[in-house]
């Protein structure tokens, strides 16, 4: 499913690249639908970037990072 979605997205991007007016029109249209715009951009960003290896596992944070998180959460609760 993910593969098909990505393939469709890539094809759509290729068509739009060939037709700048169509692209401009679609972008303007999608821009009026913030939720769709946001989802499509997230999908495009995910397909362009691999997961960073320094990404965090929240369940196993280094002690200093966990303290920083706890401080911010405590401040939010006030």
């Amino acid at each position, binding site marked *: 499913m993910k593969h098909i979605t990505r393939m469709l997205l890539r094809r759509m991007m290729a068509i739009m690249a060939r037709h700048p007016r169509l692209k401009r029109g679609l972008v303007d249209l999608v821009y009026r639908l913030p939720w769709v715009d946001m989802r499509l951009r997230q999908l495009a960003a995910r397909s362009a970037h691999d997961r960073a*290896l320094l990404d965090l596992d929240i369940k196993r*944070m*280094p002690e*200093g990072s966990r303290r920083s998180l706890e401080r*911010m*959460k405590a401040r939010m609760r006030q």
Partner: protein
Amino acid sequence: MKIHIDMQGLQTESRHRGIGRYTRATTVEFLHAIQGRHDARLLFNAALGGIDEAVVDFAEKNLHPPRTLFGPLRGTSFDNPGNDARREAAERVYSHALDIGGADVVWLTSLIEGYKDDAVMPSDLPRQLTVATLYDVIPLGSGGDLGQSRAREWYMRRIDMLRRCDLLLAISSWVRDDAIQRLGLDESRIVTIGAGVDARFRPASEGDLDARLLHRMGIDRPFLLYSGGTDKRKNVEALFPAFSALPKALRDKHQLVVVGRLDAPTRQRLERAARVAGLDDGETVFPGHVPDDELIRLYQACALFVFPSAQEGFGLPPLEAMACGAPVIVNNATSLPEVVNDPSAMFDASEPSSITTAIRSVLEDPNRAIALRDAGVRRAREFSWPRVAARAVDAMEAAWATFTRPRNAPAPNYSPAAAPVDGASAQIPIYLMDDDNVAELMPALRAWPGLAEWQGPFPTTAVPELERYRAGGWKAVLDPYAVDWPRVLAHESVAVRQVEARQDHEARRRWIGDNASHPLVRQRMVEDDIAAHIAHRLDEDDLARVADALDRLRPSGSARWLVDVTHVASADLGTGIQRVVRSVLKRWLTAPPAGIRIEPVAFRDGLYQHAHGYAAALLKIPVPPGLVEDTVAITGNETFIGLDWAMESLPASADLLHAWRRTGVGMHFIVHDLLPITLPEAFHPQTREAFDRWLRLSTDLADGLHCVSRSTADELATWMRMERRSRTPATSTFPLGVEVPSALESARLDPTTDKALATRPSFLMVGTIEPRKGHEQALDAFELLWESNADVVLVIVGKRGWMVGELIQRLEQHGERGRRLFWFEGCSDAALDALYRASTALLVTSLGEGFGLPVVEAAQRGKPVIARSLKVFREIAGDYPSYFDGTSPAVLATYLARWLAERPLHAPRSDWPTWDDAASVLAERIGEVSTR
């Protein structure tokens, strides 16, 4: 000056464009230019690529500037409104990254990033002298290019930041004039530093031109060349009708080659534009992106370089083409006249016939082509990156001399606390501590860092173990008085001071003002800002990432060596290699190298965690109460040491270690031997494969590979040479040590063994039973000796290994077992010592060794050694052993019989290295590589 340089221009898609080339070249020459005058630190974004390439590139030019890796904080691109909260938090963290470390100057090398990528800009103008490279403000002149309002908002924010910078470094005079006009900038704040061309871009010498390269690209006749971007303003499509309009005879003799990174849709667009202009497939060539060495060949070989770009901030491609001796014609627009400086080499790209006329004038007139070539080469010589860097340094120094903006960090509010705080206040606490409340306040101080005002004398009692570990590592855990209370307090707090009487408000206000720039104070203020304004829009995962990114920017106190104990901590099989790991690590934990904190770490579930349990077990002490095995936080002040032979875990952890490398973590691995490569028949295919993979990964990662003998180092050098590795880490050697337990620690042998060894000559073999160790030859030889009535004993100590099924069966069912043949599969160090002492000699029949620890262990006990004549034994033990050659049992039996008859004497040696020596020499070797 301390200068922090943002490197994101080398990380986003810009790295494939002129901005990347410009950032790389100016940074390299800038770093050269300021050496000995100013300090620089490079800031990279961990969410973006290009770090490895940049670090390697700088290292090849002998530049090793300190670097900070920020993040990764992903999903921050401006194009998506759903990223707003993440981006705002990331901008604050990034501002913090630029701010800490005492920078005087912040240089943003490419501000116009972060629309579709995760590049991050500061949330506000840094308090330091802020410098930005200005490539152009072209989009301001053609608003339509900015697209919908989100892109416009992003661009105008960047322009606003540019406007507020203290100094702008313009890449051309045209950019400077344009920016002054469009942004209304004060002329004194913007300096033209120009651009340069690398010395590699030079006219062709004999042998440079490569017909095969042209053939491979589909170029089969003289060609016109374009190189550069393909976005609309580059006007590449204007080339097709212009080329198509050439007289047929001239057109038939030439091809049009368009070089540049092309995604599939862009390639389709250009190919269609060429077809629409009436060009056949063979007339145009689109090789896509080509590496620099090939691009240079194309510049050198082209009949004409045509650059129709409508808008350029500088125009590096025409300059590079001129430097390579290509005749160059360009559009008479924006910065291009400034680069080419020759009115006869220009055309009006808005008139297709003008491009055609300009092309014809060169292709039809060889003399004009020669004149353009000569003029171009002369002009290109006026541009050099060192000159660009020198102008940048001059501009920064001049701006710094007159920089008057207040740079003091705003002092936070404070609240005095004589009881634990709960963080309810945004103020920085000043803990009012004394002997009575210190135990109660320490957890609060750790959770909510602040300043510690201590009244009265500091306690002289021992600090609790957990606090000792935090402040001084394992060495301090072992010694109750290694760290005192002031050191513990200093480790956990922003500042400590001892007072006779409590200070008044004014004194405390001054004190906190004096510490306003402390990284912990700054971090807490950023945390408060994010918590108050952004955190409620972030989910917990995102907030955790922000906290992690923020905390890892904190300068770490002392350098840490992370010693990988993944395998030995999970299963100590008592192998020779694991004995090395235990022995070296134990010494490093008890007596770490000066200024270094040793932390054993283990790779578990995809992350490295502190292996506190293993460290404590090795030191034979309990784990300090409250000490948890948390994930290792990387700040860049670490060195990873693969002391163990992590064949199984390294393939899984290598990607993470590569990521650590990018943050500046040094990488060192110990090479115990290369036997699976040098003696492949003695190992299972899967072991050979696993070893090969381990060696390749280690070589790719390592700054230093440290071998246990010169022989192993030679074999490693041979392997690296034959494999033609792209990276060749530094190699060194260090000796392994031996430690003879005192007689009191030696075990008593069982009566049967004791009697057998006491009444007959006996030979001891120590090592895992595996084909390489030559046990089979030894057993055959002893059978020959027993058949010839020689009354000798063979004692084998070693676990059963691999590919020795038949031999094990022979040993288990042997008629002499328990009489003149003994096999001890499991043997403590004390029992082994007893066997060493009771045996007549050590017998070493190995066909290959990385070191051969038993040889040294026996020699140190004064026992004779009979060893196969291996290079490594001669290296480590010299003339001490009696050496034999040959692999037949009869040869060995004869040699042993003669040895028994002659019993040659050996001069005792007392200079065998101890484990203290081994640990110390290895630490020195690692230190030597790290400081290179």
